[in-house]
């Protein structure tokens, strides 16, 4: 019964936006979904600041729910996210009469979920077994490999793929710091080089940031940060004197199962570019709020799950719950953040010159650590563009901003991705890795212990250095 109500509410969110999409924009839109994100000459009335309240409530609940009222949150988060999202939808439809912002958001949400869910399911069907004697060097190698592939299969995919072999290889000497450095490096900082790497960068890509801009603009910050973190890890791991299993003989082999899923991962990667606004020969599915890309990605979800080796799914303890959680929460986040984006952009325009790259770096970073980094990235992208009278909803404005004010976008991109590692709630995969580790029997530190004992003493000095060197 409850599921039916939730499904109806979710359908209302989607259908209401879809219907209005067809009616209100038939005169202005060009014939493709990509253009929905591009054509945006409509001027909106600014929302009342009180309507940001559902967004604030939702983010606070996401931050506190899993920590302070875990079982209530586990049972009720879908209802909470949808109800808060509906408040904003109803306000925009019936008070502001602005269906365009809703449509825009719906299109973006579908793309976002299509990418995350397809990476999640395809990588969940691959099993990696490392039969080597563990050493700090091997661990550094695994973390570095994870950082690199997180730019190809996303921090979610890389975390799913590597956390189990990483724990397995360390099983006789595993400590919470192993998992925490994995979260720092593979689940967050590693994925700063491409829009596939981390959700905030994908949102930027959907808004118009060129795909290959990120790697060119960020690698020289990414590389020293990664090296510093790996050095710190190596130093700590070298002091871990717990022995590997001495009685066991190691074959030295690395074994893969479910490798056919690499084909699915390749399909996902290629399909990212199948957007009419990137490749003109790609057909548009207008007036539907999704395109060929999203259909391919959802098809990959279905096919890769159905065709997966059941033994691999069993060994990976595959479960849809983590992606279901992201799908529900982001319905709420995407809907409720619409007024926040518009108000912040307007506010930034008024504050003008006072806002430097450094301020954007710290503001984006600190909020990314305690809220989710994807909406935070968009909020601050909106604010920095607003400073120059540009609109984040207009992709030509985003390209203009990328070309003319690159340093701001670098500061926001780096901060959103890097600081996502500050807490368990900073980025989607953090909690997933924590959950997998706990299911494996490892007692993980609480929210505050993670923050005080690991993130603040290890990450903050490094992030401070990044600020000193690149953003002052």
């Amino acid at each position: 019964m409850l599921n039916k109500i939730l499904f109806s509410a979710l359908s209302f969110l989607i259908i209401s936006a879809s219907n209005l999409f067809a009616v209100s924009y038939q005169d202005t839109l060009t014939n493709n979904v990509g253009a929905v994100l591009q054509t945006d000459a409509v001027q909106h009335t600014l929302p009342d600041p009180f309507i940001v309240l559902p967004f604030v409530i939702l983010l606070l609940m996401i931050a506190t729910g899993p920590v302070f009222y875990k079982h209530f949150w586990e049972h009720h988060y879908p209802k909470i996210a949808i109800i808060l999202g509906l408040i904003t939808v109803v306000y925009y439809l019936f008070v502001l009469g602005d269906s365009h912002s809703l449509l825009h958001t719906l299109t973006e949400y579908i793309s976002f979920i299509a990418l995350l869910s397809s990476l999640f399911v395809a990588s969940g069907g691959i099993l990696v077994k490392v039969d080597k004697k563990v050493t700090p060097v091997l661990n550094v190698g695994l973390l570095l490999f994870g950082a690199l592939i997180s730019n190809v299969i996303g921090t979610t995919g890389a975390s799913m793929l590597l956390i189990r072999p990483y724990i397995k290889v360390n099983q006789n000497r595993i400590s919470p710091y192993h998992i925490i450095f994995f979260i720092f490096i593979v689940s967050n900082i590693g994925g700063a080089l491409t829009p596939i790497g981390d959700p905030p960068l994908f949102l930027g890509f959907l808004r118009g940031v060129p795909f290959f801009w990120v790697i060119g603009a960020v690698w020289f910050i990414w590389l020293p940060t990664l090296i510093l973190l790996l050095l710190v890890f190596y130093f700590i791991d070298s002091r871990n004197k717990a022995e590997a299993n001495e009685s066991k003989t190691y074959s030295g082999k690395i074994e893969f199962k479910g490798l056919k899923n690499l084909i699915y991962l390749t399909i996902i990667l290629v399909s990212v570019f199948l957007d009419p606004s990137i490749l003109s020969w790609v057909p548009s599915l207008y007036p539907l709020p999704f395109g060929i890309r999203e259909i391919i990605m959802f098809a990959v979800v279905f096919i890769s799950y159905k065709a997966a080796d059941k033994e691999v799914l069993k060994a990976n303890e595959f479960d849809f719950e983590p992606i279901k959680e992201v799908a529900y929460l982001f319905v709420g986040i995407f809907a409720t953040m619409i007024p926040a984006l518009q108000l912040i952009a307007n506010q930034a325009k008024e504050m003008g010159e006072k806002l430097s790259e450094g301020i954007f770096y710290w503001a984006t970073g600190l909020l990314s650590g305690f809220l989710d980094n994807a909406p935070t990235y968009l909020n601050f992208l909106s604010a920095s563009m607003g400073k120059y009278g540009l609109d984040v909803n207009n992709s030509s404005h985003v390209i203009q901003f990328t070309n003319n004010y690159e340093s701001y976008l670098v500061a926001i991109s780096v901060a959103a991705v890097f600081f996502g590692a500050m807490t368990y709630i900073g980025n989607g995969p953090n909690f997933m890795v924590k959950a997998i580790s706990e299911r494996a029997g490892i007692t993980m530190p609480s929210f505050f212990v993670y923050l005080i004992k690991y993130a603040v003493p290890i990450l903050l000095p490094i992030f401070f250095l990044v600020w000193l060197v690149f953003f002052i």
Partner: protein
Amino acid sequence: MFDKNLEGLYYGNRLILPFQCSFLKVVVNRDIITDFSPKSKHLSISKEGNFTNLYFHEYENLKETISEFEAIKLVIVEKGKNVFDFSNHIKLAVYLEDKHKLRIEKIDDDILFIE
């Protein structure tokens, strides 16, 4: 005893295991349970005949929480065996199947479970 798979039963939040044993660690969903005292807020244990009942207080229906490829994991010591000898510690994965049946397997090398 655990060389081949065993079958048990489950109803709601209750597992019925077809043996008697001492529990050292139970992992259900994200909860790691090591408190098996009568006052444990997580679960209670009752033994009858050759069976052991586990009642998980924080779950109304385990089937709604544990999906097809997930397991409830146990570290146990068979009744009468020396609990202090690590070679007697047995890791088990308990899968919830249809019609209230439990499939109980000794954890193989593929399944991740740190004691």
